């Protein structure tokens, strides 16, 4: 009612021309430079933050799950991950503006050290800046979702491997990683979707002007200057199709494979 119905209407309206009637015009416009570049930027940022956030998040989760650290450390990490993973949107954007914005603390620190970040090409409102911001919620999300999988690695597997004379490297290479791989890749796809659909953070950071697919949709449908709802709907449908493909043809099969081992 509130998820599928609207999407069907959206699909229908994206096929409607500006004077009514069914047409593929809106989809033809998807091939324009502006649309391709914002899709490109969205995919680039989502991929980068999914892979980087996934790898670093995995390492953090691994350190936490290995034990040997005080139990308090694990508790702090998981609670903080819960907070940070949900700390997206306006407050997060604000926090980064005060850190790496033009007058941010780190920017000021570098200036004091004699390096002008913004003159040397850095900007918070760029691909690099947005990546840094997105990682703030991507890494914790990875930690939260991959930790159960790491905990699911059975102690017996490691012991069996060690009894057979395996080095830790061989254990990871031939036992742990193959078992974990579907979970890792699956979670990275969730991270990708998370960044791909992210709108609030980028909107708050750039006022809706950055070259991202989600921001483009907002501008085309409700903007004052670029007003072409049909195109907006088509861009939106494009995003839905991309995510539907990833979830149903990549994520779900991976999920099924990872469940096999975690029983």
């Amino acid at each position, binding site marked *: 009612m509130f998820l599928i119905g609207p999407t069907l209407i*959206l699909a229908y309206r994206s096929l409607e021309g500006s004077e009514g009637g069914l047409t593929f015009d809106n989809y033809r416009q998807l091939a324009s430079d502006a649309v391709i570049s914002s899709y490109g930027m969205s995919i680039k940022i989502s991929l980068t933050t999914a892979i980087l956030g996934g790898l670093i998040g995995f390492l953090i989760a691994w350190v936490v799950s290995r034990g040997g650290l005080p139990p308090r450390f694990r508790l702090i990490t998981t609670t903080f991950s*819960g*907070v940070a993973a949900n*700390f997206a949107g306006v407050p997060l954007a604000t926090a980064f503006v*005060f850190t790496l914005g033009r007058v941010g603390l780190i920017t000021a620190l570098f200036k004091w050290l004699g390096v002008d970040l913004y003159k040397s090409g850095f900007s918070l409102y760029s691909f690099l800046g947005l990546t840094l911001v997105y990682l703030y919620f991507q890494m914790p999300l990875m930690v939260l979702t991959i930790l159960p999988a790491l905990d699911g690695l059975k102690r017996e597997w490691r012991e069996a491997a060690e009894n057979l004379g395996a080095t830790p490297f061989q254990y990871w290479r031939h036992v742990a990683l193959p078992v974990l791989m579907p979970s890792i890749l699956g979670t990275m796809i*969730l991270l990708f979707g998370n960044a791909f659909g992210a709108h609030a953070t980028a909107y708050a950071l750039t006022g809706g002007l950055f070259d991202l697919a989600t921001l483009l949709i907002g501008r085309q449908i409700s903007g004052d200057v670029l007003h072409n709802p049909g195109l907006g*709907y088509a861009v*939106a449908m494009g995003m839905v199709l991309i995510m*539907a493909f990833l979830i149903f043809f990549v994520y779900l099969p991976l999920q099924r494979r990872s469940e096999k081992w975690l029983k």
Partner: protein
Amino acid sequence: MTLYFLIPLGATFYWSLRGKKDVLGFEAYRKLFADTNFLPSFSQSMVNAVATIFLSLLIVVPTAYWVTLRLPKLRPVIEFITLLPFVIPAVVLVFAIILLYSRPPLLLTATYDSSRVVLICMYVALSFPYMFRSVDNGLRAIDVRTLTEAAQSLGANWVTILFRVIFPNLRVALLSGALLTFAIVIGELTIALYMAQHTLGPYMADLTRSKVYEPSAMAIVAFAITWAAMGIIDFVGRGASRHAQMTDSD
């Protein structure tokens, strides 16, 4: 790594204390709370969040219970639905909703209040995955079948079973689902923005563009709210597992 996570918070906090020239203090917070738009949008978000949680619980708990007990075949369908918010980004969803409900026969976005109802319904849909996961975990931890049969043999009807047996046994799971939903709804921007609702999210975005020090105070307040929600989940969850361990060793 720790620095990466702490510096933005520290920097924001530092700025939030600089509301007055050359003096560190809580001036920015005072101004924020004194702003005539702050409290209305904050309370509106609070009401939205509570309504969302209430509706979501009312829908999800019976569904999850039914699926666990009677219709395990429906599980794949439910899991499909829990993935939908990942497939349909919020910004796409909001425009789709406006399309569907902005003209007869389903004219629901005509007034501010009816739009608000639609907004809350969308939040319920978005909260579904989180709520369902929490409740499902909770249901797995208790023996639903035995509890139900025990209640039935004592003559309880379905409503009594749900409200007097299942709900109380799921306290912890329900609370964590509810707080997670709360953390998401309270500062939500995208949907509220395009539905022209005066909630906390759009208010914060506006503040960021128009003021200097107040946004940092606002961000710290938002962070504290999220932290409180997560802290309670953790605290209650640990209490429950300790309780479970105690009953195990009996």
